[in-house]
């Protein structure tokens, strides 16, 4: 799965319009990014990338680029 496709899936889970999230955006700039969204991200990471992400790891990220990087090479650039 590509990083773009993963973000589209995450938008679907968060029930926000497609294109709302981009790699360059800061998490703090997305009003809907909250503790519940973090749980949705963990579920998606487990299901789509087979990676178990911790809350601490998520808390250490500031942008969606950094967030996706938690999934390492399980996501492709394009």
């Amino acid at each position, binding site marked *: 799965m590509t990083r773009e496709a993963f973000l589209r899936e995450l938008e679907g889970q968060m029930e926000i319009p497609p294109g709302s999230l981009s790699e360059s955006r800061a998490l703090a700039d997305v009003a809907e990014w909250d503790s519940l969204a973090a*749980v949705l991200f*963990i579920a998606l990471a487990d299901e789509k990338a087979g990676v178990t992400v911790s*809350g*601490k790891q998520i808390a250490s990220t500031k942008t969606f680029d950094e967030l996706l990087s938690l999934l390492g090479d399980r996501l492709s650039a394009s």
Partner: protein
Amino acid sequence: MKAFVAAIESALPDALLDNEQLSSEYEGWSPDKIYEKTGIRTRRIAAPDQCASDLAVCAAQALMRRAPLDPSSVDFLLYCTQTPDYILPTTACVLQHRLGLPTSCGALDFNLGCSGYVYGLGLAKALIDSGQARTVLLITADTYSKLVNPADKSVRTLFGDAAAATLVVASERETLIGPFVYGTDGAGAENLMVPAGGMRQPAVAHAELIADDSGNARTVNDLFMNGAEVFNFTLRMVPKAVEQLLAKANVEREAVDLFVFHQANRFMLDHLRRKLRIPESKFVIAMEDVGNTVSCSIPLALQHALERGQLASGALVMIVGFGVGYSWGATLMRWA
């Protein structure tokens, strides 16, 4: 002698907390959104003067009436709660007297949350199999609503109050409960916690209300849940516990007729079910009307499955409890 579960009864408080009420308090959260995220429509909330032990008495009395169970035959009372009446004495001692159980009856509390039912069955079975008891009354009861700050939607939308009474008795028959898998990881203690009110940090008068990044607010006297870390824990441990139990019991996954997991929230249960490739028909979700009832969620789900014909005599049931501690446990039951 081998232990088996002879009957389960439960009790719920009268007051309802529904999504319409929550929606009116939390801006931007519609009743539908709350339902979609939690799988819960209503929670039952204990009255201000109603303790978990009061619900426990109702559940135990229902068991005595319907099972039926002669109180004088109970030789051990196991009471699982995290909302006891007092620091001391043990609530189980108070319950022995209120329920009219004989003074020859052993009674103890054990403090566990979502894993408590599995541990209770393990203790009851051990007492019976070792010949120390023949009739064990296992009661789980909690009123988490009293620990929840109204400004913290992360927990207020989830938890409901309840009690369940389970009769575990000795039988000449084959083994009907077990084997067991247990697990503990106290490194996760801080992720589901009421920080103040014990000896480490006594309850704080006029405690400061502190809001987190998600807009939920609580004091040190209130329940705190780090949802992301708790979810991460369940993803790591629950599938492992299921596999360990199947291996220990030498049972194929397909041979299990029904999976009854702690009813944490529907999102988590759906995810675990898909991850473990369990068909929906073999998986119980029973929290819509009661919420997450902590150590009562598994007995309530068993009752739910019984009432709907999802659980029949002879069925092999896997139950898995997991949560606060962290603590987890899993066992198999052949339904009598």
